[in-house]
């Protein structure tokens, strides 16, 4: 392989987590309507941000997180900066607890993700309630977060494979 092609490939590998996050945003803005709209769409960018913040923060630098969040705000039509701050605060908390998560069983990490998702929902709910001036119903948000938490083991396993087999492959 030529020097240039190799360089390009390395760049693509480095950007893969960011691209996955952007893909998650795209999924969130498509009319998926899973099971006639009964199944809420999981928030894949939260999984992506959490996973790479724990295992390899270099692949998920904060500007990437910011761009993912900002794009989600622009595409879903919510207030600008909402999802950006949710993802960035999640990254801030997770990277400070990184040493605890590393080397733990997947069940423990899953529990950590559950905590992260619940605190992210609380933050979302609080900010949106403050902004709209009424206490908003929590039901829908909890449903969507539950869907996100349930898919974590699946996506976590896939991302682990991707990370160790493709991204780190010399």
């Amino acid at each position, binding site marked *: 392989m030529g020097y240039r092609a190799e360089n390009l490939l390395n760049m693509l590998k480095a950007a893969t987590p960011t691209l996955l996050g952007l893909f998650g945003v795209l999924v*969130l803005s498509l*009319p998926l309507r899973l099971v*006639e709209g009964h199944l*809420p769409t999981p928030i894949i960018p939260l999984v992506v941000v959490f996973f790479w913040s724990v295992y390899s923060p270099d692949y998920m630098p*904060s500007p*990437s997180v910011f761009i993912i969040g900002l794009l989600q705000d622009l595409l879903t*039509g919510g207030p*600008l900066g909402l999802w950006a701050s949710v993802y960035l605060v999640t990254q801030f908390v997770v990277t400070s607890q990184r040493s605890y998560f590393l080397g733990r069983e997947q069940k423990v990490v899953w529990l950590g993700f559950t905590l992260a998702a619940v605190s992210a929902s609380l933050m979302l709910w609080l900010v*949106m309630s403050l902004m709209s001036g009424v206490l908003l119903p929590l039901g829908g948000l909890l449903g969507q977060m539950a869907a996100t938490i349930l898919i974590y083991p699946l996506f976590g396993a896939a991302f682990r494979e991707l*990370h160790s087999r493709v991204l780190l492959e010399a």
Partner: protein
Amino acid sequence: MDYLGQDRREGLGRKANSRVLLFLLILVSIFLLLSSLYSAQASVFQKAREGVLDATSPILELFSGPIAAVNNAIGYVSDYFSVLEQNKALRDENAELRQWMNEALELRTVVAGYEGLAGYQAPPVAKPISAYVIGESNDVFAKSMIINAGRRQSVESGQAVVDADGMIGRIVNAGANASRVLLLTDVQSRVPVYIEGADAEGILVGRTRARPAIAVIDSPDEIEIRPGQRVLTSGAGGVLPRGLPIGLIEEGNGDITVDLYANYVRTRLVRVINYSFPAIDDASPLIDGASPAGAAGPESGRADARAAAGEG
């Protein structure tokens, strides 16, 4: 697995990753959030939203076609199992509709007779713009859809959007080729409505739940609101035409909620109602001087409606 968690300094952030930067970006996001609270209509934010709509609409369009095809196929399969009941229900509905058709034809001649009288001026005709839903925010607190028509198809902010069943929302951002529809269920949605039969006007307020509520009621008389009464747009403010069907009253008195005609899970083909309220100049001389509330100039009316709708 051994590699996981090792700092190999290989990703995008090998040069730029630091706690300081992360902290700085959190501050920037919070600043954005606070400023969008006070100036959601700021032209920079609007431009950014419209730019992103235009840039992503080809991608959304590419994906939304196959998604709709798959959803339709699933719909066919599940319809297949209830085809007999559906057939019976449709036949009953057809019989009822035929009666309505006869009544409507009769009424048409009566109305035509009245229209022939002197001094009658027809209300302006709304021109519908057809579009497909190519995006939908899967966000609990931000209910909106993206359609593939924009300023080039003369879609403008504030216009009403309807599907085959009834009104679904209003345009809040219009890009060149795509626009965003704020659904009636969004917490920011405010639509002036009237309740047929109760002779009452009000504001339909979204609450992120499936059923929006009528918050402010204005009526000269004691009002009697019963479940099953129709709710339609009132046209107050002069942006939406009067009489677009919205839904049925669900609970009388107390918390008045509306069961929407629109079924957002099925919404795919929509029409944007391009409606311009009659200007005061070419209005009938009958309302000269009297100037009822609805006949205010288009500009002031539009501004009122924007303020009431709290868009952005």
